[in-house]
């Protein structure tokens, strides 16, 4: 068999997959900088944990559920079809992409979707339970929904219902990734309840430059997410690239303008959040809008998300890092926005309401969004509740107050003092003593990080 692999397309998809992989560490920084310094490590670990676990599940059965032949109604792929991926190590007849390039590219989408959810439950989730949740949620919610949205029928292969039957446009995952994660975040925030002090203490971001680094890496990686979804280095990829740039830029302007008018100041947290809001909104829409349409979508998404992040105070759910306000709302703006702003001159070739296309595409978009939102919310609520009632999902109050980094990971993020440090930073370092080196001896598990002894003398 002669190879039909297109090296340029392969280069672009592999590059894009690496870019999307980087988004998860980027998200860890974005989220990590936003929490208080006593829980930054746990925040980052939720992303890294999801990265590790979901990758392995993807190999085992995840890819099969998402991209295996449909086993009925467009709802789920055959989970055993590619078990272990052994069969995908060789080129496929006539294909221009190596199968593994697609496998890798889609793996990183599954990873980041799960990681996104963690922002809703900052500072208060048991790490072990989070991992269990991540595995269950990926299996029960993400893999099937990816099948619905991303698995196009081709030849003998039958894919998912949203892509093929409803024919809603979701170029890179407005429904499967963002609405999905956003709805799950809302459900989980409700299951776990509010943090101690929510709405009373400020809980300011402890490290805004870290948030900005994260936003920068996310933007960078998102070019792989969106333009890589063309699965080829072609004109379509180039158009989506530019739309991804300008919609995001416009969303930053939209968010900052909203803050300036409402609060009197444009904040850097707002700029970073605007980046993400814009990226979320353009994700489903980047193939169907013109650059000007993208600017419009970005402005709307930036402004609406800036308003939406305040809703949690009004309704009293503690969506700690605004997964709902940014990903759910931004995902809805993008997915439904296609129904209004799509222009036939864009690669997708569909006209929305504002471009004379009527409401046909609009209802498809709305229905796809609604389906994913509902399923994700309900399933997540169930999974979360079961976990909370059985193994427990929320940490003890004292661990939350004392800092989850210490109680869950026996670590603290920063130790910025040095024995002969700076003019203003001397140190108490030697006060810490190494009492034992258990590394090799390995005396087994222990739970000794009590902050306070419970005896009152």
């Amino acid at each position, binding site marked *: 068999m002669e190879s039909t692999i297109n090296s340029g397309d392969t280069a672009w998809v592999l590059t894009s997959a690496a870019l999307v992989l980087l988004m998860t560490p980027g998200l860890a920084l974005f989220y990590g900088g936003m929490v208080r310094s006593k829980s930054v490590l746990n925040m980052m670990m939720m992303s890294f944990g999801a990265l590790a676990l979901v990758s392995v599940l993807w190999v085992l059965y995840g890819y099969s559920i998402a991209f295996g032949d449909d086993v009925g109604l467009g709802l789920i792929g055959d989970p055993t079809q590619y078990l272990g991926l052994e069969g995908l190590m060789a080129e496929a007849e006539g294909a221009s992409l190596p199968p593994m390039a697609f496998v890798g590219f889609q793996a990183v989408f599954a990873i980041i979707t799960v990681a996104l959810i963690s922002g809703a439950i900052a500072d208060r989730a048991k790490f072990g339970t989070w991992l269990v949740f991540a595995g269950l949620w990926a299996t029960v919610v993400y893999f099937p929904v990816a099948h619905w949205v991303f698995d196009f029928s081709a030849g003998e292969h039958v894919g998912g219902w949203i892509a093929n039957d409803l024919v809603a446009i979701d170029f890179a995952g407005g429904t499967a990734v963002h609405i999905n994660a956003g709805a799950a975040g809302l459900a989980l925030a409700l299951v776990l309840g509010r943090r101690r002090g929510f709405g009373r203490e400020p809980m300011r971001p402890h490290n805004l430059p870290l948030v900005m680094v994260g936003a920068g890496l996310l933007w960078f990686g998102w070019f792989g997410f969106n333009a890589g979804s063309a699965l080829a280095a072609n004109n379509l990829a180039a158009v989506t690239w530019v739309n991804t740039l300008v919609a995001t830029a416009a969303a930053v302007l939209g968010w900052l303008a909203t803050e300036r008018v409402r609060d009197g100041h444009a904040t850097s947290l707002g700029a970073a959040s605007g980046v993400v809001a814009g990226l979320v909104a353009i994700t489903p829409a980047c193939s169907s809008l013109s650059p000007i349409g993208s600017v419009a979508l970005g402005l709307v998404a930036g402004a609406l998300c800036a308003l939406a992040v305040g809703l949690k105070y009004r309704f009293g759910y503690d969506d700690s890092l605004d997964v709902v306000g940014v990903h759910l709302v931004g995902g809805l703006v993008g997915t439904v926005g296609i129904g209004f702003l799509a222009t036939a001159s864009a690669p997708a070739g569909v006209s929305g309401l504002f471009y004379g296309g009527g409401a046909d595409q609009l209802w498809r978009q709305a229905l796809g969004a609604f389906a994913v939102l509902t399923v994700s919310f309900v399933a997540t609520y169930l999974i979360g509740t079961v976990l909370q009632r059985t193994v427990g999902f929320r940490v003890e109050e004292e661990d939350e107050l004392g800092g989850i980094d*210490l109680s869950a990971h026996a670590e603290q993020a920063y130790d910025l003092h040095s024995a002969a440090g700076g003019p203003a930073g001397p140190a108490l370092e030697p*006060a810490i003593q190494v009492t034992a080196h258990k590394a090799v001896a390995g005396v087994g598990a222990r739970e000794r990080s009590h902050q306070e002894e419970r005896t009152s003398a």
Partner: protein
Amino acid sequence: MRLVTAVVKPHKWDEVREALETFGVTGMTVSEVSGYGRQKGHTEVYRGAEYDVALVPKIRLEIVVDDADADDVVGIIAKTAQTGLIGDGKVWVQPVESVLRVRTGERDEAAL
């Protein structure tokens, strides 16, 4: 005048401040310190080596008050900062000879 120095648990500081404000204390100086005492710190684990951290974070308040108010202030702190658990902290009182408000040059009672 008296200087009341109090070392309390960080999460109690806000309550203490509010109680003192209600009583009429208009100012104080606050710093972050580390306490060493009966309350032990925590254990951190790095690559199989275990570290005992001996110090616990505390908040230290310095409040200069009229002689007459010293006992009340101590009492208020004692009440609001108490959790009954080890490590609630200490309060001590010392004599002060003179106080000055930098802005106006006012002295002693007038400076508080």
